[in-house]
């Protein structure tokens, strides 16, 4: 494998443009695991951003981000009262804590993969009201 071409993006490094922002700047989260199922919370720092996050951090967007790990299902639950959403992603832990060969068998780091999703700037930052 020739490692000199560095333009093949990892899913972690989406193509940022002036009009997008990393989810990481707008939200925090934590990963938990049960068996081969990962659950990742995404919580808006600023309650005003929650609707914007709900519009852009979709099941499809997360499924695309995790596609190389071959999830069998991605399900999103919204909890507006906490300005939060909870993603439940099946089959992304290579069997889970007792089976996977990953150093991080729990997938603890995966919240930071999700938080690198690039989404459009929220209205309050885009100056569009």
């Amino acid at each position, binding site marked *: 494998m020739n490692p000199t071409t560095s333009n093949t993006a990892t899913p972690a490094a989406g193509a940022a443009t002036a009009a997008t922002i990393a989810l990481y700047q707008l939200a925090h989260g934590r990963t938990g695991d049960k068996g081969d199922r990962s*659950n990742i919370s995404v919580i808006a720092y600023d309650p005003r951003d929650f609707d914007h996050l709900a519009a852009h951090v979709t099941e499809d967007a997360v499924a695309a981000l995790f596609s190389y790990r071959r999830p069998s299902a991605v399900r999103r639950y919204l*909890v507006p*009262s906490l300005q939060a959403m909870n993603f439940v992603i099946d089959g992304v832990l290579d069997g889970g*804590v007792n089976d996977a*060969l990953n*150093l991080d068998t729990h997938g603890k*780091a995966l919240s930071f993969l999700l938080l690198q999703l690039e989404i459009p700037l929220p209205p309050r930052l885009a100056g569009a009201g």
Partner: protein
Amino acid sequence: MTAPLMIGSGAGFSGDRTDAALPVVRSLIAAGGPAVLMFETLAERTLALAQLARRGNPAHGYEPLLDALLAPVLGLCLANGIPIVGNFGAANPHAAAQRVRALAAELGLAPPRVAVVEGDDLSHEAGRAVLRQIVGPDFPEARFVCANAYIGAQGIADALAAGAQVVVCGRVADPALAVGPAMAHFGWSWQDWDRLARATMAGHLLECGAQVTGGYFADPGMKDVPDVHAVGYPIVRLDEDGNIEVGKAADTGGCVDLRTVKEQLLYEVHDPAAYLTPDVIADISAATVEQVGPDRVAVRNVRGRERPGQLKANLFYEGGWIAEGEISYAGPNAAARARLAAEIVRKRMDLLGHAAPIRFDVIGVLSVFADDGGRLLQQPQAGEAQARDVRLRAALAHEDKSVAETLLREVNALYTCGPAGGGGVRTALRARLNAMSCLVPRSAVTASHTLLP
């Protein structure tokens, strides 16, 4: 009106800090009212390891840090009427209970009333028969190690009502460590689903120790935590309506704010409207949080509904061997040399007739985000050509120990036969435990408590 119950957390996992509980107990004593201290030390995998330890020695199989966790607080708790409830019994609650009594004697304390909650262990023949029927042809007959059901809070509540000062459990559901004391204290009905759900979420917020007080949270510049090195463990104030206020031990670091509480509320919850536990289905889909003071957050609008008909059980079986070997490359072209080393190991294993899948990581370029199939690592990674300090990791799982050992020898051989400049080989070989979970009927599980004579 019944006074609120203060529930402190002394540990959130097996191997947690052993000096965390003392500041919690001091705060519980200072608060003056009814209080209880809970220790959660049992993850999915921890219990299976404990079962193996018990196999090796019938006196083992409980939390290895039991003495270190309890010694600093046992005397204070007994003297101040603060019961201790923990799942530190793991695979051998009776042995743990005996050890608690012995520890009390060694500390010069009067013999405490110690109770054992059991019934979770399904490893016996009758339990296996039930599981065999449920799992069907996939039941790992020859490789079976153990199975435990997650039992609820009834045994804990009954033991406390009977006057236990220390309650030793095995595989109870983690939140039950708070629900049991709440039920004993408030005398709620076991069908009072809303209150059960609130006590359950109190337990959920406490069960991971510092994870609600600023532990596992800090991200410099984004989420800063004061004195995180001295993070204080949580204390929940639960009132007779099940209203929750999360705080932490006095004179400690860490923080309790809306962000820490939200992260832990959702931690390992799947559908927020249906958090399944043996005692209740909790619903946090409309839960709210409010900062009611410094390091104090109220959690409201938790609802509950009727408990599930079945109990979850985890089943463990022998899964062969895992081999892991690592070697470092640094300086110019480091990642390319690491990738060449991976190629060499792969070809050598093929040559030796071991065509098992090997996972490779190039630590410093791509590791934990990658997949066991190596799909992501096949692509060149951003910044890889500039990487100056990387570590190749090879990992393999195999039924045959000798194949696993061969991988480690091949990693070791990279010293003289691999790319230039490799150093720092470390290898490890360990037995693997595989897991599966299933649902068992409540009738298959007889949970009970026993007060030591």
